[in-house]
């Protein structure tokens, strides 16, 4: 039996049986972990409101050989409850959490991504994150986990992507017209979108117009679904509540 404490963000939490909950955490030093929170549904005191998606906390965990981790106690560092006051902010927060949950693997630490996610939730809480910030966060998250999409130069020949680029998640991103025959499943994508995403990825902080954002969303959905093998569930929610 080994006890340890780690900083964590709650990625998701599901009820387990009558009284318990299973919580998926993004811990800073241990990566994604799923822990059993005994009595979390019934005892209001021990985990009081702490196991809500997005909460930043200090988790006391107990590891036993061949058994699910046990969450022994928590100290909430910040609950980000103000972001629950508006639907678009809830939708974006849950989307960012689901994206991390799916990109991460158990016991593989990603400290830079942890800090990026916490920073993004902080911005949402303070009403400083619009839709472009979410796109930027996604690009960062993909980069931190080794899935960085390539927007420039051409993912195949390394030359300029030109005026009629193609997008193909299988080959890692955007390819030039000259390489088109090598990517039979590539789809045409506008040069202006490729340019906007390349700038965003490089750290330029200019809000994108709605029309460009909508196309960026489609492109990232395709890219992420290709690498994860499925579409993220909270994408539908963003559409249902009419936000991006």
């Amino acid at each position: 039996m080994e006890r340890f404490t780690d900083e964590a963000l709650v990625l998701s939490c599901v009820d387990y049986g009558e009284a318990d909950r299973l919580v998926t955490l993004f811990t800073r030093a241990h990566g994604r972990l799923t822990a059993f929170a005994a009595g979390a549904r019934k005892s209001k005191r021990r985990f009081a409101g702490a196991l809500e998606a997005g909460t930043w906390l200090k988790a006391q965990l107990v590891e036993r050989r061949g058994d699910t981790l046990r969450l022994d106690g928590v100290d909430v560092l910040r609950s980000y409850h103000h972001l629950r006051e508006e639907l678009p902010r809830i939708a974006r927060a849950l989307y960012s959490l689901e994206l991390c949950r799916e990109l991460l693997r158990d016991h593989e630490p990603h400290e830079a991504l942890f800090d990026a996610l916490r920073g993004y939730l902080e911005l949402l809480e303070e009403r400083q994150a619009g839709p472009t910030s979410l796109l930027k966060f996604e690009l960062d998250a993909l980069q931190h986990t080794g899935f960085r999409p390539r927007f420039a130069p051409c993912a195949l020949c390394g030359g300029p992507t030109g005026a009629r680029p193609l997008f193909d998640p299988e080959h890692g991103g955007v390819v030039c017209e000259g390489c088109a025959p090598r990517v039979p499943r590539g789809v045409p994508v506008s040069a202006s979108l490729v340019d906007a995403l390349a700038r965003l990825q490089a750290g330029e902080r200019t809000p994108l117009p709605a029309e460009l954002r909508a196309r960026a969303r489609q492109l990232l959905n395709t890219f992420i679904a290709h690498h994860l093998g499925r579409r993220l569930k909270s994408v539908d929610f963003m559409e249902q509540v009419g936000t991006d």
Partner: protein
Amino acid sequence: MTPDALNRLVAQLAKLPGIGEKTAQRLAFHVLRSPPDFAKGLAAALTEVVDKVRLCPRCFSLHDGPADTRCGFCTDARRDDKVLCVVENISDQLALERTKEFKGRYHVLHGVLSPLEGVGPDQLRIRELLLRLEDSPIEELIVATNPDVEGEATALYLTKLLKPLGLRVTRLAQGIPMGGDLEYADQATLARALSARREL
């Protein structure tokens, strides 16, 4: 070798939530050891509940009257038609009912929006709620979903749909529980309690 009939019973019981193979076996042996009337009564109750209990076509609470009729909550003339309380599930409705404070009508959503589980508005009884509002004199709608992320998302989503219809939409107050302890309250609860404070 265990008789097939016993295996079948164990297999069925093990499908119940929170019941594992071991517990299912124990329950099955208990049924076997009990007087035959017990098993017959249990079987009859199980059959009756699926045959007779259905959802009320108006509020989607439980109802054991004839098909196409409405439940007691919907037909009781002493209840107020102008106030409608929207709840996540039937247990929440019963909890509110036990307070004896609420005299309006109910609407049971049968779930909450859970973006991470892929539960969207179409899986809840939201369309039925909107239809119902078209032909009823409802003035106030109380959203009584839980104060967690999913419950809040559901409340905000309903508000977005219903406010434009000119309805008064209210939300159950949130704060420190009776007999509670400020020191142990979480940040969110304490912050909500503070912003919803009242004059004495």
